């Protein structure tokens, strides 16, 4: 399973990178979204998969899945949501003000920074 996940993560990172390198601001935002999914899966996979029951003591299981990656990812999900939301509104406002979502055209010129 971990091997399969490693490749899934690789694909997520690859698509994310390609999107972030494009000109359109929207595609860059979508790219960051994919990137954070990839990162979350990476953290989870590194901790080992399906090592036991869900990390709830009420399960009374002989072994539990590692809770630490989950705690980290939980924080990361919320933060990445904040970043995405901020980014989106930024794109929205930039589009309103400048009439484009093309990063190349938004580029500040001499004396215009």
């Amino acid at each position, binding site marked *: *399973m*971990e*091997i*399969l*996940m*490693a*490749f*899934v*993560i*690789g*694909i997520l*990172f*690859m*698509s*994310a990178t*390609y*999107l*972030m*390198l*494009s*000109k359109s601001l929207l595609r860059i935002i*979508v790219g960051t*979204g*994919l990137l954070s*999914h990839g990162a979350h*899966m*990476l953290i*989870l*996979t590194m*901790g080992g*998969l*399906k090592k036991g029951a*869900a*990390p*709830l*003591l009420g399960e009374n299981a002989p072994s*539990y899945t*590692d*809770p*630490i990656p*989950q*705690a980290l*990812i*939980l*924080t990361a*999900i*919320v*933060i990445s949501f904040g*970043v995405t*939301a*901020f980014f*989106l*509104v*930024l794109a929205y*406002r930039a589009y*309103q*003000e400048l009439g484009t979502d093309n*990063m*190349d055209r938004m*580029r500040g010129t001499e004396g215009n920074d």
Partner: protein
Amino acid sequence: MSLLHLAIISPFLLAILVPIAYKLFRQIHTGWFVLPLPILLFSYFISYLSITSNQQSVTKSFSWIPALGIDFTAKVDGLGLLFALLITGIGSLVVLYSIYYLDKNKEKLNTFYVYLLLFMGAMLGVVLSDNLIVLYTFWEFTSFSSFLLIGYWYHREKSRYGAQKSMIITVFGGLSMLGGIILLYLMTGTFSISEIIAGSDEIFSHSLFVPALLCFLLGAFTKSAQFPFHIWLPDAMEAPTPVSAYLHSATMVKAGIYLVARMSPVFAEHPLWLWLIAGFGITTLFWGSFSAVKQTDLKAILTFSTVSQLGMIMSLLGIGAAALHFETVDDSYFTVATTAAVFHLINHATFKGSLFMVAGIVDHETGTRDIRKLGGLMNFMPITFTLAIIGTFSMAGLPPFNGFLSKEMFFTGMVRVLEMDIFNLDTWGFLFPVLAWVASVFTFIYSMILVFKTFTGKFQPEQLEKKPHEAPIGMLISPIILASLVIIIGFFPNIISNTLISPAQAAIMPVEGYVYDTHIYFWHGFTPELFMTLGVITLGILLFVTLPKWRRVYDFFPEKLALNRFYDSMLEVSQRASFNLTRLYMNGFIRTYLVYIFSFFIVALAATLVLKDAFKFDTSDVATIHYAEVLLALVIAAASISILFVKSRMTSIILLGAVGYTVSLFFVIFRAPDLALTQLVIETISVSLFLLAFYHLPKLRHEERMGFKMTNALISVGVGAIVTMIALSAHSNKMFPSIAQYYVENTYKEAAGKNMVNVILVDFRGFDTMFEITVLGIAALGIFAMIKLRLEGGKKNENK
């Protein structure tokens, strides 16, 4: 911390209070608040005369950074005290003069006096500290305050240019000096000047000795405006005249001379020291005096004159170093050069200080400093005229003024070079007296130009902005005091010979158990020096009278000195080169920066994997795969790849949502219920936010064409491959046992919670969560600001 330390830092302390005084008492000229300090310091330092007259010194130490061997050790000896008296004495007169020179209603006096006090404190620190690092710190402070003062009228283009030039050149020298200090430390293991001098015999043959010597000389030459670094001083004249009189003639530019004098006991044994200092000094003397003749601005004449006089003092110190090589120091036959150097240092401060003030008065009362426009002012400004006569005649080396005495001694020193038979002086040594004599002729000529072109000749009222009249008495006090000193020292030179000169000499060339004794005589008999002076006067008068005929000789060199052009083009080239270099990689495209980041990511991680031999592939300890999981993996892969190819924005948002929901399904499978829930909620909100944002956005006229870029594809494949390899290696290399067991055991015991993930978030790692909330809050504020608040420019756009 002693009273001596307090005296050094007191100008800094007062500098803090000056702006307050300026704000509170606008009606009183801020200078009056500053004036008491230099006077007080001057009288305080006078009290040290009794100690240094016996050629003794006082040392007060104050531990600063003991771990690095840096102590704020203040040492008052003959040389330091001489400079301290110059700094505070001339400082008092300059402050008094500036009160009348700078209009309290027009100028920003608070900044002016803050800079001036900064300089005063820094300069005192330079001449009174025994620790080289402390000296260096204060040294750079003088450069900075000089920069600020030159750029005081910063709205003038030339002021900014001059300030920048002086900064670049002097700080360059300062850095080189720092290099010299470090080299000395490597050789001796101490920063204390006294200790370095005590151990100077041992370092003489060290391989770093010559580099250290060169570094120090570079520092001294740039600061003291020696050829070819003198080019900053003429541009420094954009500073207000009190500053020119103080920093750029009497004190700061002499810091280089101070450094040479101070380090002489360390370096003077080496022939390079003599050759470089004497050679550069005499060249500067000649070039400065020659250039001064063709200037038309009063201050420019004085500046080039300062350059040449600094060269003269420098060359004397160089020749004086040769005296060390003769065992016959006792009869002080060769030490006359050093005596002349110290003596002329004092004299120069008096007559040049008064002349700068005179130039300032002329500028202030007529509105111009151009000698082509001036003339015939004698009748309007009799007192100023008298002061100018005293100053210039002393500068030209005429009796009975003090300049005559030191000029005679200078000739003596130069003539004696002929008798030295060390370091090949017998072959090239004759150049010294020759150049000295020629330079003195030029000095005579420009001195005469200075006084007679301004005060005699035809009066041209139509050329002047103001109707000339005598300066207010307050402005005249300072130059009168300096001019009286010129005369007093001229008639009674011996009042300073054993109080100031001999102690300074003892500090420059300390000889164990020897007490210097200086006597200065007016009349030496019919010596070569006397004939040289007579020759200077005769030829000088002749050339001055026939000046127009010689114009073309003086203008032979182009108006813009080649050196200046070199400086300008160097500055321009380096600016353009660095600009182009920056533009090369900082091109403003976000994509380029991301390419750098990702490429670095790939290279750094791949290199680490290879170098550390970290890549491993181990399939022994893997979890089982259910066919549904393979399906989910395929969904993620397919969705994320197809995002790359879809054109419509809506489709890509939906595909992103599909990836997100699949990820939350994976969380379910991987026994992470909390994650699955959170992901589900967040994904829903994100997608709706995306849709909301793009619902409000007007439709793009045409969807951006998405060309396929090979580099982008390669980089992204690289990133994907690297991350896959890291994931595989991380799975295969288990270096440490998991710390998960700790939480399994303690979650309930310590925090009384059964959901481990929740307990970790709110209890074990509570601060983490708190900051996470803070980040969200900041993001929310940012979003709010972007949506609700409009900048002025934005409003205008909307109204259109």
